[in-house]
Each structure stands twice: as C-alpha cells, then as structure tokens.
C-alpha cells in the first residue's frame, strides 16, 4: 500500500494507529497514563506547506529520524522549547535522573531524555502506521537539534524535494496528568513499497 496514494481517511487511520502506539509506549516509559490526541493531519505538495512554518525566527527543538524499509523517508518531530523542557521534567520525575544534578550534567540529561522521548514517540508512531498499512518501516536512531523552525523545515523540505513532492504533517498533543505537550510530526516518504514509480522526478 502506498502511503500517499491512500485516501485521506486511510491516512488518518494510519496516523491514529501510529499515535496510539506512541501513547502506549510513552505511558510505559513514564509509568503513568499518557493520552494522545490528534489535532490535524494533512497531506500536501511540498510547495504548499503552511507558510507559517517557513517564516519568522521562532526557535524549535527538533528530533530528526530517518526511516528505511519498504517505505523510506524523513521524519521530523518539532516541539516548542517549553514543551521540550516539560518532556524532560516528566522523564526526570519518572526516573529520578535529574534529581540533584548540576547544570552541565543536567543539560546532558535533558538531551538524553529528549532523545529517549523522541525515539519512542517517532519510532512507535512509524511502526504503528506501518502496521496499519501492512508495510515494513525501520526507523534509524533519532538525533536532536535546535534551530529556528523555519530553518529546520527548510532543510527537511529540501531533503525531501530530491525524491518527492509530497509531505504529511501531523499535529498532535500528548497529555501527561493534564499537562499537554504539543508536537508536530512531518514526514516525507522518499521510497515507496509499491512497484509504481515514486512521485518525485529529480535525480541529483
């Protein structure tokens, strides 16, 4: 099944299953209930991406994850800095990792906590989607970076534009004991499981 040839309802079902998988894994990680809610899912031409993502100097924390398998591509998890800090606090509370930690080490702990969070969130999200679509997806370990949201999105779109002209954007929130953590997931598939040719035509 081709992700981007799916109907919107199929795509939404796949996203919902992906979020459910992430919700379950995050609950297990934090040792408390986590609720995921889907705010929106859109699939669009790369050139039609919401301009608000590509303008301004707002800073975002991002976790980038490449995925391979019968479906390959790029996944970017974007969070506002406050949301990323909230994630770290939740993980400290759950594991006690940050208790009494000095500032430099705490920064390292924050970094590790976000990587763990992102690895589980995007990894399980992609796996859940793959299960629904009955395809194989193999997520690589994520990497964290901080920059303006515009620069992060710009780089993702440029990376995807070599092989594809479509992007899937998911807005969701994960609530931990009433504290909502808004996230945005952007996926650009660059290789498809179907024998049909990929939509991209650029061969750099």
């Amino acid at each position, binding site marked *: 099944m081709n992700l981007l040839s799916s109907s919107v309802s199929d795509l939404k079902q796949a996203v919902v299953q992906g979020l459910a998988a992430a919700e379950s894994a995050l609950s297990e990680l934090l040792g408390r209930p986590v609720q995921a809610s889907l705010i929106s899912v859109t699939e669009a031409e790369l050139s039609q991406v919401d301009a608000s993502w590509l303008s301004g*100097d707002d*800073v975002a924390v991002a976790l980038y994850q490449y995925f391979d398998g019968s479906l390959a591509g790029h996944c970017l998890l974007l969070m*506002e800095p406050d949301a990323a800090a909230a994630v770290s606090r939740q993980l400290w509370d759950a594991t006690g990792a940050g208790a009494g930690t000095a500032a430099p080490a705490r920064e390292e702990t924050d970094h590790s906590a976000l990587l763990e969070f992102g690895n589980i969130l995007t990894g399980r999200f992609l796996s859940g989607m793959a299960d629904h679509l009955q395809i194989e997806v193999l997520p690589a370990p994520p990497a964290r970076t901080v920059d303006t949201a*515009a620069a992060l999105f*710009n*780089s993702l779109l440029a*990376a995807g534009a070599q092989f594809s002209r479509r992007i899937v954007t998911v807005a969701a929130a994960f609530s931990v004991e009433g504290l909502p953590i808004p996230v945005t997931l952007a996926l650009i598939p660059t290789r498809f499981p179907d024998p049909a040719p990929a939509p991209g035509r650029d061969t750099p």
Partner: protein
Amino acid sequence: MTAGQAGPVPAAAGREPTVVVPMGEAAVGGPGDLMVIYGLGSCVALALWHRHTRRGALCHIVLPEGSPAPEDPPARYAGPAVDWAFNALGPAPAADLVVKLAGGASVLPVPKHVPLLDIGRRNLEAVNRALARLGLRITAAATGGSQGRTIFFQPGDGRMTIRTAAREEQVL
C-alpha cells in the same frame, strides 16, 4: 509555529521587510526595498547586486540540480537561479555586479549512510559552478556550518545581514 520568541526586525535594518522570498523563488528589489529569506537551512541565498543601478536580485535556491519543469519556480535549481538573477538585472559587465552568498548549512543531523543528502555542500558547489560559467566572482559569503540563517538584503547599498537562531548577526 509559535515556538520561542519571535524577534523584532534586525537591528541592522531597523524596518519591516518589503519582499519575502520563499523556497525556490527569486525576486528583484530596488533601492527602497528590504528583502528577506527566513530560515535558510541547506538552501542557498544568492544576492546579485548592481553597484550602479542599486537594484538587486535575491534567489532562494533549494537543490543543486534536477530536471526543471515549466511550473517550477525560478530558483528551485542552482544553475537556472543564477541565470535568472543575472538576466533580471539586465545586461551588465561582471565588474558592475557584486555577488554575496549565504546558507548551505547541514541543519539536520542526517546519518552518513543516507544517500545524496549533503545538500548544503552540493548546493554551494552548484552555485559556484554556475557563477564561474558567467564569469562572476563571489564578493562575500557566509556558508556551511550547522546553523540556520535568516537573510536580510538591502538593494539600496547591497548589504546582506545574516541572523542565526542564537540571535547573532553578521553583515556582509
């Protein structure tokens, strides 16, 4: 996106931009304009400035090369973008043109095994080749690295101001 703090217009410019150049697009500005490219990552900003007419072309280049389609914007690919900027300023000897470059960073920590992803470096190489073909030399550049950049270009004096997420500014 409402993350972080949206900063004011850069101190170096002190006013609102008049022309925003999105990905793949290009535009020409005059002496009264302030042109901007937000959030340049692996893309490259090429500013070509005519020192006598005080007009400038700004291109937001996305990819090093590919197969241009009629519906593509003028700066999707490096070579056509450089040609577009050169032609947009009218016939001009190379000595009258100032060339400034920014961008071409590696913002996303992409694994080394992922094929053909060193886009920033490849974009810069492609722009350099296209400029050399036209006999144009780069006057100033702020390229590479791992940080995104927002670019403000003032055709009135040819100044390019570059701002990073850390709010550091550099003027070319």
